[in-house]
C-alpha cells in the first residue's frame, strides 16, 4: 500500500516552538472573552517634540472594543453581524 505523507491543514505549518496551541477547544464564549475582553489595549495620543517643537502627532485609530462596550451598543450596526451570526449558530 502506498503511504501518503501527512500534510498540515491549509494555512498551518509545523511549529518550530513546542507550543501545543493546536489542541484547541474553542467556544464562542472563550473567543469573545479572550479576544474582546483581554489583550493589550493600545490607546491614546502622543505628541513627540524636541525643544517645544512638535515633531510627530501620533494618531491612533484604535477601536478599543471590550465586550461590555460592544454589548452596550445594543442594536448598533457594528454589532448586528455578530448577533446575526450567533442567531444562525
Amino acid at each position, binding site marked *: 500500500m502506498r503511504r501518503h505523507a501527512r500534510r498540515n491543514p491549509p494555512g498551518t505549518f509545523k511549529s518550530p516552538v513546542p507550543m501545543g*496551541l493546536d489542541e484547541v477547544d474553542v467556544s464562542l464564549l472563550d473567543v469573545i472573552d*479572550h*479576544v474582546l475582553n483581554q489583550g493589550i489595549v493600545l490607546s*491614546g495620543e*502622543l505628541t513627540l517634540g524636541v525643544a517645544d517643537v512638535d515633531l510627530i502627532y501620533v494618531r*491612533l485609530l484604535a477601536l478599543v472594543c471590550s465586550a461590555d462596550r460592544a454589548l452596550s451598543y445594543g442594536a448598533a450596526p457594528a454589532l448586528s453581524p455578530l448577533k446575526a451570526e450567533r442567531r444562525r449558530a
Partner: protein
Amino acid sequence: MSLCVYAIVGRRFNRRLLIRVNGASGARVRSVNAGATSALVAECKGPLSPTVRALRGHDAVVRRIARVAPAVLPVRFGTLVDSDRSLVALLDAWSDDLEKALALVDRHCQMTLRLFALPGTTAPPAQSGPADKADEAPEAAALPGTSYLAGRARAHAVAQSAPELEPLREAFAPIVASERIARHDQGPLVLTAYHLIPRGAVATYRRLLRRHAAALQHRAVVSGPWPPYAFVPELRR
C-alpha cells in the same frame, strides 16, 4: 489603509516563518520593530466589525504568530493604527512595561479555568478573610480618604482571591507561573482563573485538573492552550 495590530513580540522570533502568516484580511503579517520589541501587523481597510468570523480570525492569527515567536503579547481585537511611525512611537513609550511582560510570558501559554456553581447550590459571594477584620479598628479611626483607599485595596484583594481553587494549589504549584482571577457576581459562573504555564505543560495541567477536580466543589471547565491574552500589561496612562 490602516494597520491592524495583532501582537507584540520580543525581537527573538523566527522571521523566516513569519512570511507564512497572513492577517484576517489575507494581507501578509509583517513586523514593525522598535527597540527590543516588535509589533506584528497586517494592512486592513477601516474599522473592524466584531463578527464571529472576525473574532475567530483574529485569534487564529495570534495563534499562528505564537508558533513563530516564543514570547507573545496578544493585542485586543480591533486595534488599528495609521502608520508604522505611530506604532513605533507607542512601542517606544511603553517599552519597559512591554519588555517585562514579554519576559513573563516567554515560552508560556495560558489555560483558562472556569468554575461554575453546582446545580442546586448558590454561588456565595467572595468573603473577606480574618485578616481583613483585624484591620477594621485602625481603619475606623483613619481619615475618610485613607479609609476609602483601604476599602478599595481590600475589595481588590477579594476580587483577586480564589479560595475555591485551594484544592488545586499544591498540585499546580510546579507548573503555574502566574495567575489572574476574575470573579463573577451573577449567574452560575463563579470565577474565571487564567493560568500561565510552560508551553510543554498543557497535558500535565489537564491531567492534574482531572485528578483533583472532584475536590473543587464546583464544576470546572477548562479551555486552552491560549496565547497569554490575560497576561498583558495595562498601558493606559
